[in-house]
């Protein structure tokens, strides 16, 4: 018993950290189940459909991965916006603006995807480079205003989100980049379709999965390497932990903050580019998929660690892919938002959850004073 107690005190924080996302997601599924039950439907039946829709209806289908592509595709987009929020979070910045940066990336990809026409191996990197520059700068703007003017980044990024929405939807897409400007007899709204050399190649016959997954994988490796293996990453993390200490030790905190938001913006922009070049093929008249906001959920549930964010994103990618088939039961696919929302609420209240655990400890301590004498330092 005493050994267990010692072990518990030593590992307590790690265990609680690890438990948090799992409990959060479970709480999400529980609340969603209660809501399904309240509408007079069977949650078990619904979750069975979810599982089948996400992975396959039987073992053959599951093993052949014929359905898994959809989940991976959604997961990789979520991972990119999630990583965006993660990188900013490591520098102590809350990037609510992933949505706006996502849209800036999307419109950039739509424009250059139409304009540039080289062979794919040159074309796509060029487009992605433009996306990184434009949405990176859009993200860095918020950090710049924080560093130079002391404006809180949460407010700036919220405002930049809606600035992007309105300027793109009611100016660029209907004005200079409109399909009507290039093809006056077009009947679809939005921008012109990107040319064949700009499209991300599909990887599977059965689903829409495309090269986005590789971009997401590269992004995870890049962010992990940057944060944990480079000086820049060390500086970014030290700002997030204690900005005063970082400043005293000679780190250029302003520069690192702006850099981290540039990377964050670029990652969210890449997610937008993946959607345009991979599945949408144009910037539609109205385009608000909300992946930027989902990115916040992914980062928070994934403990703002690149690997954790990636795993969470893949998980929710599959949930979303499966949720589409729950519509058979008359349950709308935005139901995934209920799970996500509850999970974030759970993460938000984790301070309280920890407090409860500590209270429980105190109670046990009082009961079994003979076993536990003192908390080891």
């Amino acid at each position, binding site marked *: 018993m005493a050994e267990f107690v010692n072990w518990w005190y030593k590992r307590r924080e790690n265990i609680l950290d690890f438990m948090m996302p799992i409990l959060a997601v479970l709480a999400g599924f529980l609340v969603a189940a209660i809501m399904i039950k309240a509408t007079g439907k069977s949650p078990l039946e619904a979750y069975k459909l979810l599982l089948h829709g996400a992975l396959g209806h039987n073992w053959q289908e599951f093993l052949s991965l014929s359905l898994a592509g959809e989940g991976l595709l959604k997961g990789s987009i979520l991972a990119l916006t999630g990583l965006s929020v993660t990188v900013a979070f490591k520098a102590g910045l809350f990037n609510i603006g992933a949505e706006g940066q996502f849209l800036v990336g999307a419109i950039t990809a739509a424009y250059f995807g139409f304009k540039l026409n080289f062979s794919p191996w040159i074309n796509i990197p060029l487009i992605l480079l433009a996306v990184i520059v434009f949405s990176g700068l859009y993200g860095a703007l918020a950090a710049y205003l924080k560093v130079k003017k002391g404006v809180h980044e949460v407010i700036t990024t919220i405002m930049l989100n809606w600035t992007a929405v309105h300027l793109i939807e009611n100016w660029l897409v209907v004005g200079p980049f409109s399909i009507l400007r290039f093809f006056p007899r077009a009947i679809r709204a939005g921008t012109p379709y990107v040319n064949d050399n700009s499209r991300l190649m599909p990887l599977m016959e059965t689903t829409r999965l495309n090269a986005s997954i590789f971009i997401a994988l590269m992004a995870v490796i890049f962010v992990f390497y940057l944060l944990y293996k480079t000086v820049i990453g060390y500086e970014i993390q030290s700002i997030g932990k204690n900005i005063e200490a970082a400043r005293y030790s000679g780190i250029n905190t302003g520069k690192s903050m702006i850099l981290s938001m540039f990377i964050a913006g670029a990652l969210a922009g890449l997610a937008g580019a993946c959607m345009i070049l991979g599945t949408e093929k144009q910037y539609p008249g109205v385009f608000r998929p909300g992946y930027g906001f989902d990115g916040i959920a992914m980062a928070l549930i994934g403990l703002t660690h690149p690997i954790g964010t990636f795993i969470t994103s893949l998980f929710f990618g599959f949930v979303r892919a499966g949720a589409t088939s729950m519509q058979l039961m008359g349950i709308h696919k935005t139901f995934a938002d209920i799970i*996500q929302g509850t999970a974030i609420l759970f993460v938000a209240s984790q301070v309280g959850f920890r407090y409860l655990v500590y209270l429980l400890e105190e109670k046990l301590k009082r009961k079994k004073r003979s076993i536990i004498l003192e908390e080891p330092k």
Partner: protein
Amino acid sequence: MFIIITVMSVISSLLKFGTPIILAGLGGVITENAGVVNIALEGMMRIGGFFAVFGSYITGNPWYGILMAMVAGGLAGLLHAYISVSLRGNQIVSGVAINVFALGGITFFLERYFNTTGHSPSVASFMNKPIFPPLAKIPYVGEIFLNMNVFVFLAVVMPFVIHFYLYRTPWGLRHRSVGEHPKAADTLGVNVYMVRYLAVIASGVFAGLAGASITIGQLSLFDNHMPAGLGFIALAAMIFGKWKPLGTLAAALFFTFATVVQIYIQTLAPKILTIIPRGFFLALPYMLTILILAGFVGRAVPPAASGVPYEKGEKL
């Protein structure tokens, strides 16, 4: 003569379209002055808007709709208060969570109760129901009262009520002290937790009313796209109004003016839109908010303890 009528009709539509922004913005003023950030105004408006229609739908009486909107908004506020005051969680995270939850949850309810993901059927509402019908018959000035339903009336009156409360009553002083320096307020015997709880719940009630003012005030149905960013405009109006009720009123009217001008231009002189695209009018509130925060247009400073959880007995 023509000028007076035009001015009156512009004022009338400013008040009509500005109402949701004013009401939600006031919610923001109340909570931020008590030191709790509420970026969930958007989600709470959505919740309030839906339950207003729902309440009106099942009872046939729009007053019950208002009641349900206030209760639903208040409950969302209670949740936010519990997490940000009692559990001392991150207020931004909690706000994001409520927004996300409102997005999915309300779609879910819409499908459950109205079997649609588009918009609900038409319900009994306050649309075109002036609160002072006789006044609407007055020549010229009557135009203003023609559009003045109960929500518009509240939006005109409440900023002054809250201004009086915050700056002219002892409770208002306590309220603001909790937002500026909770430790000092606590030392003087103000119950910081209580004030914060009440403030956040009140902001939920106001946001719920704001949502209701769209669904059963301007219209008589709930559309799944609602409130389409109005909650964030309200947030912007609150900042642009420097965290003050009357400032928020002015900012909300100013932002609405940009929208109304854009609508007028669209119908009267569409050529102007080829020079200044619509997007600029719509993005104006957000861009101005960034500029004012950065100090290019005046200076806006939030209450000192806004966003900082308070723990009794904590060392400073």
